[in-house]
């Protein structure tokens, strides 16, 4: 029986962002941009979608005079990610 995959996570960029955040305590917007090879605009949109869903928290601060955006996965995000991986497993050949 195939389980339904969370459509919010079943997209390459959002899944990549969530995977990086799951494996780290927090990550900078520029780091996410570097590892995902995404454009700033697209990454901002996808991060916003994840934030609106409550999967991640976004903190805006300043590093010297430069603005800085830091992302961190929320407990809801961890649960959603775990559920997504469990659902993915049901698609694998037994």
């Amino acid at each position: 029986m195939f389980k339904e995959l969370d459509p919010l996570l079943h997209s390459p960029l959002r899944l990549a962002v969530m995977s990086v955040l799951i494996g780290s305590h927090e990550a900078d917007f520029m780091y996410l941009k570097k590892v995902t090879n995404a454009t700033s605009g697209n990454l901002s949109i996808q991060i916003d979608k994840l934030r609106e869903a409550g999967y991640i928290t976004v903190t805006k601060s300043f590093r010297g005079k430069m603005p800085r955006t830091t992302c961190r996965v929320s407990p809801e995000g961890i649960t959603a990610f775990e559920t997504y991986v469990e659902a993915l497993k049901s698609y694998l050949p037994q």
Partner: protein
Amino acid sequence: MDRTLSEKESFELIRQMISTAKNNLQKGMGKIFLLWGYLVALISLANFILLVVLTGEAQYNSYYLWALMGLGYPVHWMWIRKIEHARMITTYVEKMMTWVWVAFAISIVTVVLGLVCSSLLVMNRMTMPGQEFLHWFQWLFMPPFLVCLYGLALFISGKAYQFRPMVTGGIICWLGALFLLVSLHHPQVLELQQAVICLCALAGFVVPGHLLSRKEKSHV
């Protein structure tokens, strides 16, 4: 544009992204190790030489050299600020290790402050026989305690970062602490203590610091 992933692609993407975060090595930490390692090694070496050269009461004044450790703090904070400024990702291991070293610093301050206060409290009221000896003797416990704490922090960090030189350094510090405790009654205990502190600083901080710096360069 969003495209749909196959299940296999999803797993591969997750694996790939998690591994990028895991392999991250914070640049600049090697320098911090070298700063404290060289500072402790040089002060203990100078202290050792003064203990050998000087005689009588003057010998004990050589310990004031340790006040030079204070020079490390402004440099330490300046470099930490630089590291934090350049930091793009914080892994769970890094977060945990920060707290281990904070706990290490608190433990060091506790031991030093505790012994200094205890000494000041009895300094002018030594009435009981043997109290003067005990007052002198209590200071001998400081180096083994501190070296033991070096071992603890280094061992945990080395295991967490899977960095063998740090683990080895930690073990050497523990052996050094054991040796210092066993040799508490040795006639040349003061000189021995400074020599062991110097060796432990070299093995625990200087050697791993240089290797860490080299490793950081190869990851750039």
